[in-house]
């Protein structure tokens, strides 16, 4: 907690005061670092890029994941179990193993450096996770509920919209915050798959932590711009964040 406080206050301190030891608790607030980051530093653009990538990824992951989970709930066939198990194994495939060939493939199709790369990459990581999350929430839904709806003559998609979807709303909220948090914060894919025009916030930060000496004022401002929105969203959706994180562990 203290480190976060220090970073945010540093972003408002004049450069000389950042260096002072012990850290000054009373300081002359300044917004020059934010000016530098937003106006000269392109962080305004990165913010919009991050927003586009994170929102699109979240939309794809949650919609695709909810449909996919319902698909798996309906079927009893073996291929479905194999598919869902192998997706879980997919989680242990390191990003770097996918990134190198994906980068080359996207360049062959001349879509490297666009929003498409990070959106596809983030969605492919999120989708299996969202399905897994939805299924562990869906275990609580009695099978009879679905069956009785079928007897009443409801079409399968009606059952989804009228029964499953409302019951899964908490799971969907969890999926939204977790997908968004992943995509907003993800670095490695975005680092190589974006270009000057599509850099996301973490990439922007990565560009100056590479330097030998860091401009603490400017980087603190940039880091604050990046983390404060997602911390706020996390706070507002704290209940769903926690239930999503604990879903697989304690739900039966």
């Amino acid at each position: 907690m203290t480190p976060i406080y220090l970073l945010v206050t540093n972003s408002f301190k004049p450069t000389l005061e950042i260096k002072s030891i012990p850290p000054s608790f009373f300081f002359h607030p300044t917004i020059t670092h934010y000016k530098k980051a937003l106006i000269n530093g392109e962080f305004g653009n990165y913010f919009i890029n991050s927003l586009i990538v994170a929102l699109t990824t979240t939309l794809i992951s949650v919609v695709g994941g909810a449909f996919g989970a319902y698909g798996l709930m309906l079927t009893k066939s073996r291929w479905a179990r194999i598919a869902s198990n192998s997706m879980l194994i997919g989680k242990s495939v390191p990003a770097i193993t996918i990134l190198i060939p994906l980068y080359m493939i996207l360049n062959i199709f001349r879509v490297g450096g666009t929003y498409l790369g990070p959106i596809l990459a983030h969605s492919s990581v999120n989708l299996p996770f969202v399905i897994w999350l939805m299924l562990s929430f869906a275990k609580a839904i009695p099978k009879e509920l679905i069956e009785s709806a079928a007897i009443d003559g409801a079409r399968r998609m009606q059952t989804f919209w009228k029964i499953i979807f409302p019951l899964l709303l908490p799971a969907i909220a969890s999926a939204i915050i977790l997908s968004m948090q992943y995509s907003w914060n993800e670095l490695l894919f975005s680092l190589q798959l974006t270009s000057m025009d599509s850099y996301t916030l973490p990439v922007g930060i990565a560009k100056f932590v590479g330097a030998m000496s860091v401009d603490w004022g400017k980087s603190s401002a940039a880091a604050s711009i990046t983390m404060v929105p997602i911390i706020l969203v996390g706070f507002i959706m704290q209940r769903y964040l926690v239930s999503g994180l604990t879903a697989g562990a304690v739900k039966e």
Partner: protein
Amino acid sequence: MNREIKNRSLSLEKGDLLSFLLILPTLLIVLIVMIIPLFYGISISLFRYDIGRTITASDFVGLGNYLRLFKDGTMLKSLTNTVIFAISATAGDLIIGTLIAVLLLKITPKARGLLRALYIMPLLISPIIVGLIWRYMYDPSSGFLYWILSLFGLGIKQFPGMTATSTALLSVIIAHWWQVVPFVIIVVTAGLVSIPNEYYEAAYIDGSGEIRTFFSISLPLLVKVYMVIIIISGVDTIKVFDIIYSLTQGGPANSTMSLSIYAYKNGFEMYQMGYAMAIAVFTMFVSFIIFGIPFIRFGMQSKGQEEA
């Protein structure tokens, strides 16, 4: 008659067609973004594939890149670092997280809720920022950590932090703990709360002490919780990239070089895609070897539950 059969086989109301259509988008994305690149990547790893040069049949090296791995000192160092990082980071997460979760259970739920709002923060932010924050903490001239240490009469001599090869990896692990321990606290707390009270009462009646109760009752029931934590966050430690990228970039003297960082440097800084890909595929195997067991056990567990 014929039409009826045709209708039924195409029906969305019976059979698996609807299931297949619903899961198709996910399968397509996973196929395009993970499976095809994976096989393409494995084939690249069999070539001397340098970007900017035309690749011909004579660049086929078979398993040459993989043999090179084991003669490459930096790569072996990265392997050791990655394994040390993965094991100590994950073990530390579990131990510290469980300890704090058990202690937090002693305070009122309301106070616990308030505290949670505070300690939840690190897990919401990007590892690259975690790295940046700790780079400031470890800064020898103005870092917060050294100010704290100086109050105890300690300094850079006793704990050289990121500047010495002996403590650099530990410094990275500490930053990782700071971010991931809150996640473990949350999940373990949920696990502990879900244990029925009768178990504890029985133990209390038997006169078993608090520590023994924890080891004989709570811990065995937490095994499944730990499995989920390892699946969700443990596997990520093998692919560690962001936090090292912003803290040390693999230095000093490769003392924090991880497999992901080394593969990245080979691929995107030296443009040796073939060799980088061999490191990346090797990283995947290391991940399977270390974390394969929890995955298989978890898969069997959930299968057993469905059948029960």
